[in-house]
């Protein structure tokens, strides 16, 4: 192993992606994307279904070969040094890949053996993780008997078995109830405090805003924007938003004349007023909308504004 392995300074690049491409079946899933993930940060890959998030992530852990570009993890080449790379990362795949033929505890022990971990150490580590994820009471349960939330917790526990420096999470909370989701976020925050580096894909904007230091929004295999959640909100949609339902026809005229950023969705208007009280006042007094919401802008507004509001797939 090279020298970079020993200690990784905070802020050092962990993943370096340059003009990464992925084509299959004549389709370009990832189209020359470039980004860098630094030690200790949580990096988000956001995008609608089919944007290329999972394809990109699979290349990072060497599951799928890349079509073009360059990709280094821990400064190592994924094509030749994939084994070293994989021994230092933990992956939480989108599909449930837990071993249904084994119990909860066996899942952790057997997975540890794939990393070549000695049995005694694996036992200790598995017990720690079961405790950390509050899974102790399920130790002899079969994987098939677990609820969605427990399944995800076990998947994350399994991804941590080798004490990875980099943790890759592909839609970790899809399909979970709010309780399970918040519990998982809590655990992830805890791990972040320990200095782990994360790469996360999600289409829950609330999740991305909570967990990610930096993120990119992908669509059609390309990166649309990159930045911090708050920076992106400020830059693309402003501080606040007025949502208006079935408004006076004069509203359109008013918005166009004043060159106020807005989107229309059927009967609903989304007006990016950026804390401008004058606009707010004018809408309140002049147009008397039947339903009107004044709220702060969120990452979801950025996302929808950039990737469009029409349905995917």
């Amino acid at each position, binding site marked *: 192993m090279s020298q970079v392995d020993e200690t990784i300074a905070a802020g050092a690049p962990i993943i370096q992606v340059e003009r990464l491409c992925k084509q*299959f079946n004549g389709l370009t899933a990832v189209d020359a994307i470039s980004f860098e993930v630094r030690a200790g940060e949580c990096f988000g890959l956001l995008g609608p279904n089919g944007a290329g998030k999972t394809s990109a992530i699979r290349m990072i*852990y060497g*599951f*799928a*070969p890349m079509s073009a570009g360059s990709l280094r993890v821990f400064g190592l080449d994924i094509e030749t040094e994939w*084994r*070293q790379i*994989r*021994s230092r990362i933990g*992956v939480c*795949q989108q*599909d*449930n*890949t*837990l*071993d*249904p*033929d*084994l119990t909860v505890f*066996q899942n952790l022990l*057997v*997975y540890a*053996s*794939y*990393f*070549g971990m000695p049995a005694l150490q694996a036992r200790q580590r598995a017990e720690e993780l079961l405790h950390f994820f509050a899974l102790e009471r399920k130790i002899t349960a079969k994987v098939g008997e677990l609820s969605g939330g427990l399944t995800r917790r076990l998947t994350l526990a399994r*991804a941590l078995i*080798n004490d990875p420096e980099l943790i890759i999470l592909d839609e970790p909370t899809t399909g979970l109830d709010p309780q399970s989701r918040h519990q998982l976020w809590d655990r992830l925050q805890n791990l972040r405090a320990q200095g782990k580096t994360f790469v996360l894909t999600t289409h829950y904007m609330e999740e991305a805003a909570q967990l990610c230091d930096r993120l990119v929004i992908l669509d059609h295999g390309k990166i649309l924007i990159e930045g911090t959640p708050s920076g992106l909100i400020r830059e693309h949609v402003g501080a606040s938003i007025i949502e208006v339902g079935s408004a006076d026809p004069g509203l359109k005229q008013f918005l166009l004349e004043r060159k106020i950023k807005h989107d229309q969705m059927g009967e609903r208007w989304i007006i990016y007023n950026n804390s401008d009280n004058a606009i707010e006042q004018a809408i309140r007094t002049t147009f008397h909308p039947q339903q009107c919401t004044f709220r702060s802008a969120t990452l979801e507004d950025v996302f929808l504004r950039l990737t469009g509001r029409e349905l995917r797939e």
Partner: protein
Amino acid sequence: MIRLGNISWRFLSVWRRNLIVYRRIWKVNFFVPLLEPAFYIIAFGLGFQGLVNNLTYGGQALTYTHFMAPALIGISIMYNSFFETTYNSFVRMYYQKTFDGMMATPLSLEEIILAEIVWSATKAAAAALIMLVVLGLFGFVVFPLGLLVVPLAFLGGLAFGSIGMFFTGIIPSIDMFNLPIFLFITPMFLFSGTFFPVSGLPAWAQSVALVFPLFHLVELTRFCCLGRVETSPLLSLSYLALFTICFLCLGLITMRRRLIK
């Protein structure tokens, strides 16, 4: 095409995973090879003994049950390994996504596939050992030569496990395994000198039988159990080894093509 550099002893961890699962239902796994030979021996031994009087094999007269008993081991080796790397591996690969999970660890695809094939051979050897004990008690095996059946079963298991994995690599859906079973496994089961000597067949059918790996495996189990043989054991052994190497490579290639996208 085949990445030999991707193969290390790490594959044993996947083999061990299968052993853990096997041990959990070991009673079922032991029961079948324990009872199966007994059923066949009783059915064919008692049922056919009276109909088949003067069977000659390797130039000597033999009772029908003595002729058939070693073939039962050969058939069991074939079934145990072939079904392991077809249905069972397919379920792990496609439905359980077990291989996907493994490929997020320092395991290579080649190691996973090799482990599955070696595991199927292990299972075949375990079944052969149990059958050897049962048939030995019936007096159908000469010892110590008969003990060679166990390593032979491992080789036979590798051969049938490899071709099973090849089919898993190319089959579109699990129902389609009926095809190789109907066109390949069943004819072999019947025409590989298993229930009657191949020498009784017309010349063209004899040459076809020579291509069947089961024919060679049965010849070899018969050699081990009876100490006599009609064909050359070395030639049969070489054929099985060659067959194994060919289909091991094809299994690795087709599975890589199937899973690495």
